[in-house]
């Protein structure tokens, strides 16, 4: 059922959510809009195409405690479990889509990442459709769109001075019927569908430039191409692309101990770092920028699709905007297609 909520009522809802649980929302600070815990709706920035960092920060935090240990003569291990419930507001369609891609890695197969699973279970995602996609956005290249709502518990679409709303899951219905009680009104179904359609069909200019179709297969026989040598030379070897990416999920485990007790953490790692694959004996199967750059793009556009049958990218455009040297996935897709077309 489609609903509407006024901007003022949405503020009231967000204030309630901030009071009753942990609310994460876009905040503008020193010129950067990013997701942060907020205490009140008044802290939230609504004028953003997308946040600098993604919902990944709160479902799969950059570092999190896994266990506590004591090693004074004996050994005891205490598992640490993420318990805190949270609501994330203002999540864009590309980031909602990224959650499904992360789910495939972290919750399927023989082993589940129980920390991620717990956070997923305890997080309500409130999506916000895109009014004005940035010139680096290309979600449509992957078949998503500015109104794509899959993954949201509640989806909001700005419609004039109010919002069209739809609860898409039990968690979402609990928000609408619980803290949201009395704040939503039923929407005119036809008008609401028209709003959704307008968002779904909204133009994403950069998306038109990036044709992803068939890139997974083109890369099947591209491992040895000279292209990787050429393109990787400009890589700075920093972790920007991997850390701002909503789908990059590589991590390392690390201990910090003092006086017989300590913590084991899980921290993000980056395939762009030289030490990432370096083994204890010194051998490194990916010794130079060429192998590392190739790995990142092959993973997103070929290896992951082989395993999980979709691309590991949602076209959020963060790497397009933030890679200091313009070595981003949209460019690689265009380049590979160009190389193949001339081959």
């Amino acid at each position, binding site marked *: 059922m489609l609903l509407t909520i006024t901007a003022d009522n949405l503020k009231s809802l967000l204030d309630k959510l901030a009071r009753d649980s942990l609310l994460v929302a876009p905040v503008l*600070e*020193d*010129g*950067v809009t*990013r997701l942060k815990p907020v205490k009140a709706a008044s802290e939230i920035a609504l004028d953003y195409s997308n946040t*600098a*960092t993604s919902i990944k920060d709160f479902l799969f935090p*950059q*570092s999190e405690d896994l266990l506590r240990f004591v090693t004074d003569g004996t050994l005891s291990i205490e598992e640490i479990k993420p318990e805190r419930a949270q609501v994330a507001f203002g999540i864009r369609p590309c980031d909602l889509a990224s959650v499904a891609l992360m789910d495939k890695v972290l919750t399927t197969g023989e082993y589940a990442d129980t920390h991620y699973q717990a956070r997923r279970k305890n997080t309500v995602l409130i999506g916000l459709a895109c009014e004005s996609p940035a*010139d*680096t956005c290309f979600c449509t290249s992957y078949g998503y769109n500015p109104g794509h709502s899959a993954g949201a518990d509640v989806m909001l679409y700005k419609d004039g001075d109010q919002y069209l709303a739809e609860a898409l899951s039990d968690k979402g219905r609990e928000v609408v019927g619980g803290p949201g009680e009395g704040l939503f009104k039923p929407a005119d179904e036809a008008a609401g569908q028209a709003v959704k359609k307008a968002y779904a069909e909204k133009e994403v200019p950069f998306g038109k430039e990036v044709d992803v179709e068939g890139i997974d297969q083109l890369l099947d026989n591209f491992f040895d191409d000279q292209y990787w040598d*050429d393109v990787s*030379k*400009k890589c*700075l*070897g*920093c*972790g*920007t692309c991997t*850390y*701002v990416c909503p789908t990059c999920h590589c991590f*390392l485990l*690390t201990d*910090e101990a003092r006086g017989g007790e300590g913590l084991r*953490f899980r*921290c*993000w*790692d*980056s395939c762009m*770092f*030289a*030490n990432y694959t370096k083994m204890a004996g010194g051998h490194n199967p990916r010794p130079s*920028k060429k192998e590392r750059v190739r790995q990142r793009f092959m993973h997103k556009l070929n290896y992951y699709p082989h395993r999980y049958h979709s691309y590991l990218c949602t076209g959020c455009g963060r790497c*397009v905007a*933030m890679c*200091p*040297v*313009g*070595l*981003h996935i*949209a*460019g690689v897709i265009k380049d590979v297609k160009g190389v193949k077309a001339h081959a």
Partner: protein
Amino acid sequence: MSATFTDHQAALRDEVKKLLTDGSIKGFIGYARGRDSYHPVPAIVTRPDQVDGLILDQFSIFGLTKYLLDYIFEDGKMGIVVKGCDALGLGRLINDHRVDRNKVHVVGLPCAGVLNGEKVAKLGLGKVQRVTDKGSAFLVEGDKGSKELPKTEYLWDKCLWCENHNPAGADTLLGSEVENVAMKPRDFSDITALEKMPSAERAAFWTRQFSRCIRCYACRNVCPACNCRECVFDIADPRWVGNTVKLSEQQMFHFTRAFHVAGRCVDCGECERVCPMEIPLMKLQRKLQKDVIELFGNPKPFVPSEVEVLGQFRVTEDPEEFM
């Protein structure tokens, strides 16, 4: 009206083609078009057929010198295009004995200031067709509109107080040298303001900045003064800074880096420019510059010299007793 960078693009391509073809260099480090006309990106070409991808335009800000470290263990020369500010970065790498000047062919690009692509992109001028130097302004003509942009507003800050418009010691110079005067004096007023802040307020300011850090190390990787063979932050044993992302580790990283390049920073501002979280890293460096100027009487701590302020120790001049 003086020449713009674009006026030198054809000459640069000719030069690089010649150098690659006659084997005097094995590769050239320059610029290529980025995602739009406001964000040129580094490009490293090794074959003559790639040279037509090289561009030069008035947005070519990226300091390329750090790439030279990728080639120090290989035979042969690399070519590189450097502006005045970039020449200081090159000087840093040479003075630190990390780059052998004889293995670099330097193509110098005299520079009257680089347009801040981030600012200009927001004006909605569309794809840039032409940039003309009008003296105190650049006229930017795009396919969606044109605008005369005063240099004092649209150049990168560092260009305004730049006193190194002409790259020193280039092997080839594109065009002729430009008048070498700063548009305004070096301005430390923001640093003075920070110094005057009550310490709790100042701590809050920096806490806010460093808590944004994602530890991507882009600042370190682009910095010509961060040229250690193995960075302390990459050493696993002992691990000086933990991998966990928390304020204390972030601060440890940034303060260590700041102090390690103190007196060696060439003021290129690249760390701050490439930071994806827009942390004002140059405020740390400029505070240290200001201190070096005031404490050591060195008016230009950012110009690499044989004798660095913090790179020497004379026991006879040390007022303190031996520890």
